[in-house]
């Protein structure tokens, strides 16, 4: 039964990933990535990482993808995204290289033998509940945890500084929508 779930989830993950890479509309690509991320969250649950499955849905499929979709809408969603590549044969090269990489990684991975019975390892994970992960996070890894919180703060401040418009810059207003005021019409 778990093999059946794995095959279904793997098909979902790979289909979503292919849509992300191939779709000509950027919004479709982003939605393909959402499908991949949700299927990955379900895969995490089958791997006894329940907390990570929930975080994957909330942070990745929720927050990060909303940010991506906002930016895609803000920029140029309708333009063709794989238009005229300066290197003519890059698609064939990428497909060849990707197939070679996938084959090599797959062959290496299938040679892996589990160091101990899987049920034993899964039991040691205590289902990967928030309590179990949080205990590790706030005892052994408390310094990386604090460093990451500082990093998040820096990222938020940095992104605000990056996109903040200088106050006196009238040329930043798009020309298609001139700002009309009643005073000018009267003058």
């Amino acid at each position, binding site marked *: 039964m778990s093999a059946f779930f794995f095959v279904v989830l793997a098909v979902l993950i790979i289909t979503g990933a292919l849509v992300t890479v191939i779709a000509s509309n950027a919004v479709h690509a982003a939605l393909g990535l959402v499908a991949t991320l949700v299927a990955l969250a379900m895969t995490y649950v089958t791997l006894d990482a329940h907390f990570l499955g929930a975080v994957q849905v909330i942070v990745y499929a929720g927050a990060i993808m909303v940010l991506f979709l906002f930016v895609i809408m803000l920029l140029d969603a309708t333009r063709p995204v794989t238009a005229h590549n300066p290197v003519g044969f890059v698609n064939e090269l990428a497909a060849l290289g990707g197939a070679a990489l996938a084959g090599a990684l797959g062959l290496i991975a299938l040679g892996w033998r589990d*160091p101990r019975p899987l049920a034993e*390892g899964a039991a040691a994970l205590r289902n990967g509940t928030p309590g179990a992960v949080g205990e590790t996070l706030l005892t052994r890894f408390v310094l990386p945890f604090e460093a990451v919180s500082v*990093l998040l703060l820096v990222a938020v401040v*940095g992104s605000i500084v990056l996109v903040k418009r200088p106050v006196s810059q009238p040329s930043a207003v798009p020309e298609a929508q001139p700002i009309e005021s009643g005073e000018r019409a009267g003058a």
Partner: protein
Amino acid sequence: MVGTEWYIALSGVLFAIGMIGVMTRRTAVLIFLSVELMLNAANLALVAFARAWGDLTAQTAVFIVMTLAAAEVAIGLAIIVTIFRKRASTNVDDLAELKG
């Protein structure tokens, strides 16, 4: 239970698909999406190995990687928006001032 090797193989395939995306896409946002794909492939491998060894360290690492990804997306998309304002384009072939 499905063996760890199948999860690692799936992670490898996902990573390769992400690499194809990085190579073929020409828009900065879509290259970024493909990088996210590769990041998630690495996360899947970590979670699978966490079960193989019965160690929660890898799951903690995945949690930290997710936070890093959130910070990276915030900064990266801010940079892309800034470039788009200046150039009205995010095609990576147009942004080639640094080439020799």
